[in-house]
Protein backbone atom coordinates (compact mmCIF):
# COMPACT_ATOMS: atom_id res chain seq x y z
CA UNK A 1 0.00 0.00 0.00
CA UNK A 2 1.24 3.47 -0.90
CA UNK A 3 2.45 6.10 1.53
CA UNK A 4 -0.45 8.46 0.79
CA UNK A 5 -3.00 5.69 1.31
CA UNK A 6 -1.37 4.87 4.62
CA UNK A 7 -1.55 8.50 5.70
CA UNK A 8 -5.18 8.69 4.66
CA UNK A 9 -6.02 5.46 6.53
CA UNK A 10 -4.31 6.75 9.67
CA UNK A 11 -5.99 10.16 9.39
CA UNK A 12 -9.45 8.58 9.17
CA UNK A 13 -8.65 6.29 12.10
CA UNK A 14 -7.59 9.27 14.23
CA UNK A 15 -10.72 11.19 13.22
CA UNK A 16 -13.12 8.44 14.33
CA UNK A 17 -11.12 7.90 17.54
CA UNK A 18 -11.37 11.60 18.38
CA UNK A 19 -15.11 11.70 17.67
CA UNK A 20 -15.75 8.62 19.80
CA UNK A 21 -13.53 9.85 22.63
CA UNK A 22 -15.45 13.14 22.67
CA UNK A 23 -18.66 11.16 23.18
CA UNK A 24 -16.90 9.11 25.87
CA UNK A 25 -15.82 12.30 27.62
CA UNK A 26 -19.18 14.02 27.20
CA UNK A 27 -21.20 11.19 28.69
CA UNK A 28 -18.92 10.26 31.57
CA UNK A 29 -17.61 13.67 32.58
CA UNK A 30 -19.95 16.36 31.25
CA UNK A 31 -23.31 14.62 31.79
CA UNK A 32 -22.41 12.47 34.79
CA UNK A 33 -20.15 14.82 36.75
CA UNK A 34 -19.96 18.49 35.66
CA UNK A 35 -23.65 19.00 34.87
CA UNK A 36 -25.09 16.28 37.04
CA UNK A 37 -27.16 18.70 39.14
CA UNK A 38 -28.78 20.32 36.10
CA UNK A 39 -29.62 16.93 34.64
CA UNK A 40 -30.99 15.72 37.95
CA UNK A 41 -33.97 18.05 37.51
CA UNK A 42 -35.15 15.66 34.79
CA UNK A 43 -36.49 12.25 35.81
CA UNK A 44 -36.59 9.07 33.78
CA UNK A 45 -38.64 6.32 35.36
CA UNK A 46 -37.84 6.58 39.01
CA UNK A 47 -34.33 7.99 38.69
CA UNK A 48 -32.83 11.43 38.26
CA UNK A 49 -31.20 11.58 34.83
CA UNK A 50 -27.73 12.72 35.94
CA UNK A 51 -27.60 10.04 38.61
CA UNK A 52 -28.74 7.41 36.10
CA UNK A 53 -26.04 8.39 33.60
CA UNK A 54 -23.40 8.23 36.33
CA UNK A 55 -24.41 4.78 37.54
CA UNK A 56 -25.89 3.06 34.48
CA UNK A 57 -26.19 5.06 31.27
CA UNK A 58 -22.51 5.83 30.78
CA UNK A 59 -21.63 2.12 30.87
CA UNK A 60 -24.17 1.38 28.12
CA UNK A 61 -22.73 4.23 26.04
CA UNK A 62 -19.19 2.83 26.50
CA UNK A 63 -20.41 -0.46 25.04
CA UNK A 64 -21.99 1.25 22.04
CA UNK A 65 -18.79 3.25 21.41
CA UNK A 66 -16.61 0.12 21.28
CA UNK A 67 -19.18 -1.74 19.16
CA UNK A 68 -19.26 1.11 16.64
CA UNK A 69 -15.47 1.44 16.53
CA UNK A 70 -15.00 -2.30 15.88
CA UNK A 71 -17.50 -2.17 13.00
CA UNK A 72 -16.07 1.04 11.55
CA UNK A 73 -12.48 -0.17 11.66
CA UNK A 74 -13.28 -3.56 10.17
CA UNK A 75 -14.80 -1.72 7.20
CA UNK A 76 -11.92 0.76 6.99
CA UNK A 77 -9.33 -2.03 7.10
CA UNK A 78 -11.05 -3.69 4.12
CA UNK A 79 -11.39 -0.42 2.21
CA UNK A 80 -7.66 0.27 2.45
CA UNK A 81 -6.81 -3.38 2.04
CA UNK A 82 -4.92 -3.65 5.32
CA UNK A 83 -7.22 -6.27 6.89
CA UNK A 84 -5.89 -9.64 7.99
Amino acid at each position, binding site marked *: *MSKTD*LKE*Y*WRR*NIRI*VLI*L*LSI*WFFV*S*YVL*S*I*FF*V*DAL*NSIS*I*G*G*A*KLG*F*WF*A*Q*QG*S*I*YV*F*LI*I*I*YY*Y*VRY*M*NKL*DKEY*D*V*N*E
Partner: protein
Amino acid sequence: MSVQLWTFIIVGLTFATYIGIAIWSRASSTKDFYIAGQGIHPVVNGMATAADWMSAASFISMAGLISFMGYDGAVYLMGWTGGYVLLALLLAPYLRKFGKFTVPDFIGDRYYSNVARTVAVIAAIIVSFTYVAGQMRGVGVVFARFLEVPINTGVFIGMAIVFFYAVVGGMKGITYTQVAQYCILIFAYMVPAIFISFAITGNVIPQVGFLSTESSSGVYLLEKLDMLHRELGFHEYTTGSKSMIDVFAITFALMVGTAGLPHVIVRFFTVPKVSDARKSAGWALLFIAILYTTAPAIAVFARTNLINTVSEKKYTEMPQWFKSWEGTGLIKYEDKNSDGKIQYVADKDANELTIDRDIMVLANPEIANLPAWVIALVAAGGLAAALSTAAGLLLVISTSLSHDLIKKQIKPDLTEKQELMWARIGAIFAVLVAGYFGINPPGFVAATVALAFGFAAASFFPAIILGIFDKRMNKEGAISGMVVGLVLMFFYMAVYKLGWFVEATPPPTEWWFGISPEGFGTVAMFVNLIIAVVVSRMTPPPPADVQQIVEDIRVPRGAGAAHIH
Protein backbone atom coordinates in the same frame (compact mmCIF):
# COMPACT_ATOMS: atom_id res chain seq x y z
CA MET B 1 -28.21 -29.85 53.99
CA SER B 2 -26.38 -27.16 55.97
CA VAL B 3 -24.82 -24.05 54.43
CA GLN B 4 -21.38 -25.24 55.38
CA LEU B 5 -21.76 -28.63 53.74
CA TRP B 6 -23.05 -26.95 50.57
CA THR B 7 -20.10 -24.57 50.65
CA PHE B 8 -17.62 -27.44 50.95
CA ILE B 9 -19.25 -29.23 48.03
CA ILE B 10 -19.52 -26.24 45.69
CA VAL B 11 -16.12 -24.74 46.51
CA GLY B 12 -14.58 -28.24 46.26
CA LEU B 13 -16.15 -28.80 42.84
CA THR B 14 -14.98 -25.45 41.49
CA PHE B 15 -11.43 -26.05 42.74
CA ALA B 16 -11.39 -29.50 41.15
CA THR B 17 -12.46 -27.86 37.87
CA TYR B 18 -9.58 -25.35 38.03
CA ILE B 19 -7.05 -28.12 38.64
CA GLY B 20 -8.54 -30.26 35.88
CA ILE B 21 -8.26 -27.35 33.42
CA ALA B 22 -4.65 -26.73 34.49
CA ILE B 23 -3.67 -30.31 33.73
CA TRP B 24 -5.53 -30.29 30.40
CA SER B 25 -3.96 -27.02 29.23
CA ARG B 26 -0.33 -27.40 30.29
CA ALA B 27 2.05 -24.90 28.72
CA SER B 28 4.75 -26.51 26.61
CA SER B 29 6.52 -23.42 25.22
CA THR B 30 7.27 -19.88 26.36
CA LYS B 31 4.68 -18.68 23.84
CA ASP B 32 2.07 -20.87 25.57
CA PHE B 33 3.23 -19.70 28.97
CA TYR B 34 3.35 -15.97 28.18
CA ILE B 35 0.52 -15.42 25.70
CA ALA B 36 -1.41 -18.71 25.53
CA GLY B 37 0.01 -19.51 22.08
CA GLN B 38 -1.91 -16.54 20.64
CA GLY B 39 -4.81 -18.77 19.73
CA ILE B 40 -7.53 -17.45 22.02
CA HIS B 41 -10.89 -16.63 20.43
CA PRO B 42 -11.95 -12.99 21.09
CA VAL B 43 -15.11 -13.99 22.99
CA VAL B 44 -13.16 -16.41 25.16
CA ASN B 45 -10.53 -13.75 25.73
CA GLY B 46 -13.25 -11.24 26.61
CA MET B 47 -14.56 -13.60 29.27
CA ALA B 48 -11.08 -14.30 30.62
CA THR B 49 -10.33 -10.55 30.67
CA ALA B 50 -13.54 -9.93 32.62
CA ALA B 51 -12.53 -12.47 35.29
CA ASP B 52 -8.94 -11.24 35.26
CA TRP B 53 -10.21 -7.71 35.78
CA MET B 54 -12.98 -8.22 38.35
CA SER B 55 -11.24 -8.77 41.64
CA ALA B 56 -12.39 -9.63 45.13
CA ALA B 57 -13.05 -5.88 45.50
CA SER B 58 -15.48 -5.81 42.55
CA PHE B 59 -17.31 -8.91 43.66
CA ILE B 60 -17.43 -8.54 47.43
CA SER B 61 -16.92 -4.85 48.25
CA MET B 62 -18.18 -2.71 45.39
CA ALA B 63 -21.97 -2.93 45.82
CA GLY B 64 -21.56 -2.34 49.55
CA LEU B 65 -19.28 0.63 48.93
CA ILE B 66 -21.78 2.18 46.55
CA SER B 67 -24.64 1.63 48.98
CA PHE B 68 -22.79 3.76 51.52
CA MET B 69 -21.54 6.32 49.00
CA GLY B 70 -24.69 6.81 46.89
CA TYR B 71 -23.98 8.98 43.83
CA ASP B 72 -20.24 9.11 44.61
CA GLY B 73 -20.09 5.36 43.94
CA ALA B 74 -20.14 6.34 40.27
CA VAL B 75 -16.37 6.90 40.46
CA TYR B 76 -15.95 3.11 40.61
CA LEU B 77 -18.73 2.25 38.17
CA MET B 78 -17.50 4.59 35.43
CA GLY B 79 -13.83 4.49 36.40
CA TRP B 80 -13.59 0.71 36.18
CA THR B 81 -15.51 0.41 32.89
CA GLY B 82 -14.55 3.55 30.94
CA GLY B 83 -10.95 2.37 30.71
CA TYR B 84 -12.04 -0.31 28.23
CA VAL B 85 -12.97 2.40 25.72
CA LEU B 86 -9.37 3.63 25.96
CA LEU B 87 -8.07 0.08 25.64
CA ALA B 88 -10.14 -0.65 22.53
CA LEU B 89 -9.51 2.68 20.79
CA LEU B 90 -5.98 3.59 21.84
CA LEU B 91 -3.99 0.60 23.06
CA ALA B 92 -5.07 -2.98 22.45
CA PRO B 93 -4.95 -3.16 18.62
CA TYR B 94 -1.53 -1.50 18.35
CA LEU B 95 0.08 -3.49 21.12
CA ARG B 96 -1.26 -6.66 19.55
CA LYS B 97 0.20 -5.65 16.21
CA PHE B 98 3.52 -4.98 17.91
CA GLY B 99 3.30 -8.66 18.76
CA LYS B 100 5.59 -9.28 21.71
CA PHE B 101 5.10 -11.01 25.02
CA THR B 102 4.90 -8.37 27.75
CA VAL B 103 4.31 -4.67 28.39
CA PRO B 104 7.98 -3.98 29.35
CA ASP B 105 8.81 -5.67 26.01
CA PHE B 106 6.97 -2.89 24.20
CA ILE B 107 8.50 -0.14 26.32
CA GLY B 108 12.01 -1.61 25.96
CA ASP B 109 11.82 -2.03 22.16
CA ARG B 110 9.88 1.13 21.34
CA TYR B 111 12.27 3.20 23.42
CA TYR B 112 15.34 1.21 22.28
CA SER B 113 16.66 1.18 25.80
CA ASN B 114 17.21 -1.31 28.59
CA VAL B 115 16.85 1.51 31.10
CA ALA B 116 13.29 2.06 29.85
CA ARG B 117 12.72 -1.70 29.99
CA THR B 118 13.95 -1.85 33.58
CA VAL B 119 11.79 1.10 34.66
CA ALA B 120 8.82 -0.72 33.10
CA VAL B 121 9.73 -3.97 34.89
CA ILE B 122 9.91 -2.16 38.22
CA ALA B 123 6.59 -0.41 37.59
CA ALA B 124 4.92 -3.71 36.54
CA ILE B 125 6.18 -5.46 39.66
CA ILE B 126 5.13 -2.66 42.02
CA VAL B 127 1.67 -2.41 40.46
CA SER B 128 1.12 -6.18 40.48
CA PHE B 129 2.40 -6.86 44.00
CA THR B 130 0.40 -4.08 45.60
CA TYR B 131 -2.68 -5.43 43.86
CA VAL B 132 -2.12 -9.14 44.53
CA ALA B 133 -1.65 -8.76 48.29
CA GLY B 134 -5.26 -7.68 48.58
CA GLN B 135 -6.46 -10.63 46.50
CA MET B 136 -4.76 -13.26 48.66
CA ARG B 137 -6.19 -11.57 51.72
CA GLY B 138 -9.63 -11.72 50.08
CA VAL B 139 -9.30 -15.46 49.55
CA GLY B 140 -8.42 -15.89 53.21
CA VAL B 141 -11.36 -13.77 54.34
CA VAL B 142 -13.92 -15.68 52.25
CA PHE B 143 -12.60 -18.98 53.59
CA ALA B 144 -12.73 -17.69 57.14
CA ARG B 145 -16.34 -16.51 56.89
CA PHE B 146 -17.88 -19.38 55.02
CA LEU B 147 -15.83 -22.40 55.98
CA GLU B 148 -14.84 -21.28 59.44
CA VAL B 149 -11.14 -21.94 58.97
CA PRO B 150 -8.54 -19.42 60.17
CA ILE B 151 -7.74 -16.68 57.61
CA ASN B 152 -4.16 -17.90 57.22
CA THR B 153 -5.27 -21.44 56.37
CA GLY B 154 -7.51 -19.92 53.72
CA VAL B 155 -4.56 -18.00 52.27
CA PHE B 156 -2.52 -21.24 52.14
CA ILE B 157 -5.29 -23.11 50.32
CA GLY B 158 -5.65 -20.24 47.84
CA MET B 159 -1.87 -20.18 47.28
CA ALA B 160 -1.83 -23.92 46.62
CA ILE B 161 -4.57 -23.67 43.99
CA VAL B 162 -3.11 -20.66 42.18
CA PHE B 163 0.34 -22.21 42.42
CA PHE B 164 -0.91 -25.28 40.65
CA TYR B 165 -2.57 -23.74 37.65
CA ALA B 166 -0.37 -20.68 37.20
CA VAL B 167 2.90 -22.59 37.45
CA VAL B 168 1.77 -25.57 35.36
CA GLY B 169 -0.44 -23.87 32.82
CA GLY B 170 0.99 -20.35 32.50
CA MET B 171 -1.16 -17.97 30.46
CA LYS B 172 -2.83 -20.89 28.69
CA GLY B 173 -3.96 -22.51 31.94
CA ILE B 174 -4.94 -19.16 33.42
CA THR B 175 -7.05 -18.22 30.39
CA TYR B 176 -9.24 -21.31 30.52
CA THR B 177 -9.57 -21.28 34.31
CA GLN B 178 -10.56 -17.62 34.09
CA VAL B 179 -13.35 -18.52 31.68
CA ALA B 180 -14.66 -21.06 34.22
CA GLN B 181 -14.21 -18.51 37.01
CA TYR B 182 -16.14 -15.87 35.10
CA CYS B 183 -19.10 -18.22 34.66
CA ILE B 184 -19.10 -19.08 38.36
CA LEU B 185 -18.74 -15.53 39.60
CA ILE B 186 -21.36 -13.99 37.33
CA PHE B 187 -23.88 -16.73 38.14
CA ALA B 188 -23.17 -16.30 41.84
CA TYR B 189 -23.64 -12.54 41.56
CA MET B 190 -26.80 -12.56 39.47
CA VAL B 191 -28.87 -15.23 41.24
CA PRO B 192 -29.28 -13.36 44.55
CA ALA B 193 -29.62 -10.03 42.68
CA ILE B 194 -32.52 -11.35 40.63
CA PHE B 195 -34.26 -12.85 43.66
CA ILE B 196 -33.93 -9.64 45.66
CA SER B 197 -34.99 -7.41 42.79
CA PHE B 198 -38.13 -9.51 42.42
CA ALA B 199 -38.83 -9.49 46.14
CA ILE B 200 -38.54 -5.71 46.47
CA THR B 201 -39.84 -4.38 43.15
CA GLY B 202 -41.59 -7.32 41.49
CA ASN B 203 -39.21 -7.00 38.53
CA VAL B 204 -36.72 -9.80 37.83
CA ILE B 205 -34.16 -7.62 36.00
CA PRO B 206 -32.11 -5.73 38.63
CA GLN B 207 -31.25 -2.90 36.19
CA VAL B 208 -34.99 -2.29 35.67
CA GLY B 209 -35.88 -2.89 39.30
CA PHE B 210 -33.44 -0.08 40.12
CA LEU B 211 -35.84 2.34 38.37
CA SER B 212 -39.07 0.77 39.60
CA THR B 213 -41.42 1.38 42.48
CA GLU B 214 -41.18 -0.50 45.73
CA SER B 215 -43.93 -3.16 45.67
CA SER B 216 -44.95 -2.58 49.28
CA SER B 217 -45.31 1.24 49.16
CA GLY B 218 -45.76 2.09 45.47
CA VAL B 219 -43.11 4.83 45.78
CA TYR B 220 -40.12 4.92 43.40
CA LEU B 221 -37.28 3.11 45.11
CA LEU B 222 -34.71 5.88 44.62
CA GLU B 223 -37.14 8.56 45.85
CA LYS B 224 -37.93 6.44 48.87
CA LEU B 225 -34.23 6.05 49.63
CA ASP B 226 -33.58 9.80 49.32
CA MET B 227 -36.47 10.37 51.72
CA LEU B 228 -35.14 7.85 54.25
CA HIS B 229 -31.69 9.42 54.01
CA ARG B 230 -33.06 12.90 54.67
CA GLU B 231 -34.99 11.65 57.69
CA LEU B 232 -31.91 10.02 59.19
CA GLY B 233 -29.65 12.98 58.46
CA PHE B 234 -27.50 11.34 55.74
CA HIS B 235 -26.74 13.22 52.52
CA GLU B 236 -29.30 12.34 49.83
CA TYR B 237 -28.52 9.00 48.18
CA THR B 238 -28.67 10.36 44.63
CA THR B 239 -26.40 13.33 45.33
CA GLY B 240 -22.83 13.06 46.46
CA SER B 241 -20.68 14.41 49.25
CA LYS B 242 -17.34 14.51 47.44
CA SER B 243 -16.23 17.68 45.61
CA MET B 244 -16.76 17.73 41.85
CA ILE B 245 -13.05 18.04 41.07
CA ASP B 246 -12.28 15.01 43.22
CA VAL B 247 -15.01 12.89 41.62
CA PHE B 248 -13.57 13.85 38.24
CA ALA B 249 -9.98 13.11 39.27
CA ILE B 250 -10.77 9.72 40.82
CA THR B 251 -12.88 8.60 37.86
CA PHE B 252 -10.21 9.68 35.38
CA ALA B 253 -7.38 8.08 37.36
CA LEU B 254 -9.25 4.78 37.52
CA MET B 255 -10.01 4.87 33.79
CA VAL B 256 -6.44 5.54 32.63
CA GLY B 257 -5.15 3.24 35.38
CA THR B 258 -7.32 0.43 34.02
CA ALA B 259 -5.93 1.01 30.55
CA GLY B 260 -2.39 0.96 31.95
CA LEU B 261 -2.57 -2.20 34.08
CA PRO B 262 -0.13 -4.75 32.67
CA HIS B 263 -2.21 -7.80 33.60
CA VAL B 264 -5.14 -6.41 31.62
CA ILE B 265 -3.09 -5.25 28.61
CA VAL B 266 -1.29 -8.56 28.26
CA ARG B 267 -4.62 -10.37 27.79
CA PHE B 268 -4.94 -8.65 24.41
CA PHE B 269 -1.66 -10.25 23.30
CA THR B 270 -3.34 -13.67 23.37
CA VAL B 271 -5.71 -13.24 20.41
CA PRO B 272 -4.73 -14.18 16.82
CA LYS B 273 -5.44 -10.87 15.03
CA VAL B 274 -5.47 -7.08 15.50
CA SER B 275 -9.20 -6.92 14.79
CA ASP B 276 -9.68 -9.62 17.46
CA ALA B 277 -7.95 -7.36 20.00
CA ARG B 278 -10.53 -4.62 19.34
CA LYS B 279 -13.39 -7.10 19.44
CA SER B 280 -12.30 -8.75 22.64
CA ALA B 281 -12.09 -5.37 24.42
CA GLY B 282 -15.78 -4.98 23.53
CA TRP B 283 -16.65 -8.48 24.74
CA ALA B 284 -14.69 -7.92 27.94
CA LEU B 285 -16.65 -4.75 28.67
CA LEU B 286 -19.95 -6.49 27.93
CA PHE B 287 -19.14 -9.29 30.39
CA ILE B 288 -17.98 -6.76 32.98
CA ALA B 289 -21.00 -4.51 32.42
CA ILE B 290 -23.37 -7.31 33.43
CA LEU B 291 -21.92 -7.15 36.94
CA TYR B 292 -21.25 -3.43 36.97
CA THR B 293 -24.79 -2.40 36.03
CA THR B 294 -26.19 -4.85 38.59
CA ALA B 295 -24.01 -3.57 41.44
CA PRO B 296 -25.73 -0.15 41.79
CA ALA B 297 -29.10 -1.93 41.83
CA ILE B 298 -27.93 -4.28 44.59
CA ALA B 299 -26.61 -1.24 46.44
CA VAL B 300 -30.05 0.40 46.40
CA PHE B 301 -31.93 -2.79 47.32
CA ALA B 302 -29.52 -3.55 50.16
CA ARG B 303 -29.58 0.00 51.49
CA THR B 304 -33.39 0.20 51.51
CA ASN B 305 -33.67 -3.25 53.00
CA LEU B 306 -31.18 -2.43 55.72
CA ILE B 307 -32.82 0.82 56.78
CA ASN B 308 -36.31 -0.72 56.70
CA THR B 309 -35.13 -3.67 58.78
CA VAL B 310 -33.16 -1.90 61.49
CA SER B 311 -34.20 1.73 61.84
CA GLU B 312 -36.11 2.38 65.09
CA LYS B 313 -36.78 -1.37 65.46
CA LYS B 314 -36.38 -3.32 68.68
CA TYR B 315 -32.97 -5.00 68.99
CA THR B 316 -34.55 -8.19 70.32
CA GLU B 317 -36.70 -8.52 67.18
CA MET B 318 -33.80 -8.51 64.72
CA PRO B 319 -33.80 -11.35 62.15
CA GLN B 320 -31.36 -14.27 62.27
CA TRP B 321 -28.86 -12.85 59.71
CA PHE B 322 -28.39 -9.77 61.89
CA LYS B 323 -27.41 -11.95 64.84
CA SER B 324 -25.11 -14.23 62.86
CA TRP B 325 -23.18 -11.32 61.28
CA GLU B 326 -23.00 -9.66 64.67
CA GLY B 327 -21.10 -12.77 65.74
CA THR B 328 -18.40 -12.02 63.15
CA GLY B 329 -17.99 -8.46 64.43
CA LEU B 330 -19.04 -6.98 61.09
CA ILE B 331 -22.25 -5.58 62.53
CA LYS B 332 -21.95 -3.79 65.85
CA TYR B 333 -24.77 -2.44 67.98
CA GLU B 334 -24.39 -0.26 71.05
CA ASP B 335 -27.55 0.95 72.79
CA LYS B 336 -26.40 4.48 73.62
CA ASN B 337 -29.75 5.85 74.83
CA SER B 338 -30.85 2.53 76.39
CA ASP B 339 -34.25 2.44 74.68
CA GLY B 340 -33.75 -1.09 73.33
CA LYS B 341 -34.27 0.19 69.78
CA ILE B 342 -31.74 0.68 67.03
CA GLN B 343 -30.99 4.26 66.03
CA TYR B 344 -29.18 4.27 62.70
CA VAL B 345 -28.49 7.94 61.89
CA ALA B 346 -25.80 10.18 60.40
CA ASP B 347 -25.01 11.93 63.69
CA LYS B 348 -22.01 10.06 65.14
CA ASP B 349 -22.96 10.64 68.76
CA ALA B 350 -26.49 9.29 68.38
CA ASN B 351 -25.77 6.51 65.90
CA GLU B 352 -25.87 3.05 67.49
CA LEU B 353 -25.11 0.79 64.55
CA THR B 354 -21.90 0.22 62.59
CA ILE B 355 -21.93 -2.03 59.55
CA ASP B 356 -19.00 -3.30 57.51
CA ARG B 357 -19.62 -2.47 53.85
CA ASP B 358 -18.42 -5.90 52.71
CA ILE B 359 -21.39 -7.75 54.16
CA MET B 360 -23.83 -6.16 51.72
CA VAL B 361 -23.08 -8.72 49.02
CA LEU B 362 -22.13 -11.59 51.30
CA ALA B 363 -25.23 -11.30 53.49
CA ASN B 364 -27.60 -10.57 50.61
CA PRO B 365 -28.76 -14.19 50.17
CA GLU B 366 -29.48 -14.51 53.88
CA ILE B 367 -31.33 -11.20 54.01
CA ALA B 368 -33.50 -12.35 51.14
CA ASN B 369 -34.01 -15.80 52.72
CA LEU B 370 -32.49 -17.63 49.79
CA PRO B 371 -31.71 -21.37 50.01
CA ALA B 372 -28.42 -22.63 51.45
CA TRP B 373 -26.91 -23.50 48.06
CA VAL B 374 -27.15 -19.86 46.94
CA ILE B 375 -25.13 -18.76 49.96
CA ALA B 376 -22.53 -21.41 49.11
CA LEU B 377 -22.49 -20.17 45.53
CA VAL B 378 -21.67 -16.64 46.68
CA ALA B 379 -18.66 -18.00 48.57
CA ALA B 380 -17.47 -19.84 45.45
CA GLY B 381 -18.03 -16.67 43.39
CA GLY B 382 -15.96 -14.52 45.74
CA LEU B 383 -13.14 -17.07 45.60
CA ALA B 384 -13.34 -17.25 41.80
CA ALA B 385 -13.07 -13.44 41.57
CA ALA B 386 -10.06 -13.27 43.89
CA LEU B 387 -8.20 -16.27 42.41
CA SER B 388 -8.65 -15.23 38.77
CA THR B 389 -7.24 -11.77 39.40
CA ALA B 390 -4.40 -13.12 41.55
CA ALA B 391 -3.37 -15.56 38.80
CA GLY B 392 -3.25 -12.83 36.14
CA LEU B 393 -1.11 -10.63 38.37
CA LEU B 394 1.26 -13.44 39.31
CA LEU B 395 1.84 -14.17 35.65
CA VAL B 396 2.85 -10.54 35.01
CA ILE B 397 5.37 -10.75 37.83
CA SER B 398 6.81 -14.06 36.66
CA THR B 399 7.15 -12.98 33.00
CA SER B 400 8.69 -9.64 34.01
CA LEU B 401 11.37 -11.60 35.82
CA SER B 402 12.01 -14.46 33.39
CA HIS B 403 11.54 -12.61 30.09
CA ASP B 404 12.25 -8.92 30.58
CA LEU B 405 14.94 -9.21 33.22
CA ILE B 406 16.73 -12.53 32.67
CA LYS B 407 16.22 -13.33 28.99
CA LYS B 408 16.35 -9.78 27.66
CA GLN B 409 19.05 -8.38 29.91
CA ILE B 410 21.05 -10.78 32.08
CA LYS B 411 21.33 -13.97 30.01
CA PRO B 412 20.23 -13.44 26.38
CA ASP B 413 21.56 -16.88 25.37
CA LEU B 414 18.88 -18.66 27.44
CA THR B 415 17.28 -21.54 25.53
CA GLU B 416 13.51 -21.79 25.17
CA LYS B 417 13.43 -24.60 27.74
CA GLN B 418 15.52 -22.69 30.27
CA GLU B 419 13.40 -19.59 29.86
CA LEU B 420 10.25 -21.64 30.48
CA MET B 421 11.86 -23.01 33.62
CA TRP B 422 12.73 -19.50 34.77
CA ALA B 423 9.14 -18.42 34.10
CA ARG B 424 7.92 -21.22 36.38
CA ILE B 425 10.49 -20.30 39.05
CA GLY B 426 9.30 -16.70 38.75
CA ALA B 427 5.71 -17.83 39.25
CA ILE B 428 6.66 -19.86 42.35
CA PHE B 429 8.52 -16.87 43.77
CA ALA B 430 5.55 -14.57 43.06
CA VAL B 431 3.06 -16.96 44.72
CA LEU B 432 5.23 -17.15 47.85
CA VAL B 433 5.62 -13.39 48.14
CA ALA B 434 1.90 -12.82 47.50
CA GLY B 435 1.07 -15.40 50.15
CA TYR B 436 3.41 -13.72 52.60
CA PHE B 437 1.62 -10.40 52.08
CA GLY B 438 -1.73 -12.17 52.38
CA ILE B 439 -0.76 -13.52 55.80
CA ASN B 440 1.07 -10.41 56.99
CA PRO B 441 -0.85 -7.64 55.26
CA PRO B 442 1.29 -4.50 55.32
CA GLY B 443 -0.25 -1.42 56.90
CA PHE B 444 -0.88 0.15 53.52
CA VAL B 445 -3.13 -2.64 52.23
CA ALA B 446 -6.16 -0.38 52.43
CA ALA B 447 -4.41 2.03 50.09
CA THR B 448 -3.23 -0.64 47.66
CA VAL B 449 -5.95 -0.44 45.04
CA ALA B 450 -5.66 3.32 44.73
CA LEU B 451 -1.89 2.93 44.70
CA ALA B 452 -1.86 0.30 41.95
CA PHE B 453 -4.12 2.37 39.71
CA GLY B 454 -2.22 5.55 40.45
CA PHE B 455 1.09 3.92 39.52
CA ALA B 456 -0.32 2.40 36.34
CA ALA B 457 -1.80 5.75 35.34
CA ALA B 458 1.38 7.65 36.21
CA SER B 459 3.78 5.32 34.41
CA PHE B 460 2.50 2.99 31.68
CA PHE B 461 -0.44 4.83 30.20
CA PRO B 462 1.42 7.92 28.91
CA ALA B 463 4.49 5.91 27.84
CA ILE B 464 2.39 3.52 25.76
CA ILE B 465 0.08 6.15 24.25
CA LEU B 466 2.99 8.38 23.26
CA GLY B 467 4.87 5.37 21.93
CA ILE B 468 1.99 4.66 19.54
CA PHE B 469 0.74 8.11 18.58
CA ASP B 470 3.85 10.31 18.80
CA LYS B 471 6.52 9.15 16.38
CA ARG B 472 8.91 11.79 17.68
CA MET B 473 8.79 10.43 21.24
CA ASN B 474 12.24 9.19 22.25
CA LYS B 475 13.78 7.28 25.15
CA GLU B 476 14.86 10.42 27.03
CA GLY B 477 11.29 11.73 27.08
CA ALA B 478 9.61 8.44 27.96
CA ILE B 479 12.04 7.53 30.74
CA SER B 480 11.99 10.94 32.42
CA GLY B 481 8.18 11.02 32.16
CA MET B 482 7.77 7.59 33.76
CA VAL B 483 10.28 8.23 36.53
CA VAL B 484 8.83 11.63 37.47
CA GLY B 485 5.27 10.24 37.28
CA LEU B 486 6.10 7.31 39.57
CA VAL B 487 8.04 9.38 42.08
CA LEU B 488 5.37 12.09 42.23
CA MET B 489 2.61 9.51 42.71
CA PHE B 490 4.60 7.74 45.41
CA PHE B 491 5.36 10.99 47.22
CA TYR B 492 1.74 12.17 47.23
CA MET B 493 0.41 8.79 48.34
CA ALA B 494 3.10 8.50 51.05
CA VAL B 495 2.39 11.92 52.51
CA TYR B 496 -1.34 12.40 52.02
CA LYS B 497 -2.56 8.83 52.46
CA LEU B 498 -0.02 7.11 54.69
CA GLY B 499 1.37 10.09 56.59
CA TRP B 500 5.00 9.20 55.91
CA PHE B 501 7.75 11.89 56.13
CA VAL B 502 5.34 14.18 58.04
CA GLU B 503 4.16 14.30 61.61
CA ALA B 504 0.52 13.65 60.83
CA THR B 505 -1.41 12.81 57.66
CA PRO B 506 -2.48 16.21 56.28
CA PRO B 507 -6.27 16.81 56.28
CA PRO B 508 -8.26 16.95 53.00
CA THR B 509 -8.17 20.76 53.12
CA GLU B 510 -4.46 20.57 52.30
CA TRP B 511 -4.83 18.35 49.24
CA TRP B 512 -3.33 19.78 46.06
CA PHE B 513 -6.16 21.26 43.96
CA GLY B 514 -8.57 19.49 46.34
CA ILE B 515 -7.65 16.12 44.81
CA SER B 516 -7.52 13.07 47.07
CA PRO B 517 -4.67 10.51 46.90
CA GLU B 518 -7.10 8.17 45.07
CA GLY B 519 -7.52 10.71 42.30
CA PHE B 520 -3.93 11.92 42.17
CA GLY B 521 -3.05 9.45 39.41
CA THR B 522 -4.75 11.93 37.07
CA VAL B 523 -2.32 14.71 38.03
CA ALA B 524 0.72 12.39 37.91
CA MET B 525 -0.41 11.13 34.49
CA PHE B 526 -0.56 14.65 33.02
CA VAL B 527 2.78 15.59 34.58
CA ASN B 528 4.34 12.49 32.99
CA LEU B 529 2.78 13.41 29.63
CA ILE B 530 4.01 17.00 29.68
CA ILE B 531 7.53 16.15 30.85
CA ALA B 532 7.84 13.40 28.23
CA VAL B 533 6.79 15.72 25.40
CA VAL B 534 9.00 18.62 26.52
CA VAL B 535 12.11 16.48 27.13
CA SER B 536 11.69 14.59 23.85
CA ARG B 537 11.61 17.83 21.87
CA MET B 538 14.90 18.94 23.40
CA THR B 539 16.73 15.67 22.70
CA PRO B 540 17.52 13.78 19.45
CA PRO B 541 14.67 11.98 17.62
CA PRO B 542 14.45 8.16 17.83
CA PRO B 543 16.44 6.14 15.23
CA ALA B 544 14.88 5.37 11.85
CA ASP B 545 14.18 1.69 12.58
CA VAL B 546 12.18 2.67 15.68
CA GLN B 547 10.16 5.16 13.65
CA GLN B 548 9.51 2.28 11.25
CA ILE B 549 8.12 0.20 14.16
CA VAL B 550 5.66 3.02 14.87
CA GLU B 551 4.60 3.07 11.20
CA ASP B 552 4.15 -0.71 11.27
CA ILE B 553 1.96 -0.98 14.33
CA ARG B 554 -0.52 1.45 12.81
CA VAL B 555 -1.47 -1.04 10.10
CA PRO B 556 -3.30 -4.22 11.11
CA ARG B 557 -2.10 -6.51 8.33
CA GLY B 558 0.79 -8.82 9.04
CA ALA B 559 0.26 -9.19 12.78
CA GLY B 560 0.92 -12.93 12.58
CA ALA B 561 2.76 -14.67 15.36
CA ALA B 562 4.85 -13.00 18.02
CA HIS B 563 8.47 -12.97 16.95
CA ILE B 564 11.22 -13.82 19.32
CA HIS B 565 14.13 -11.70 18.18
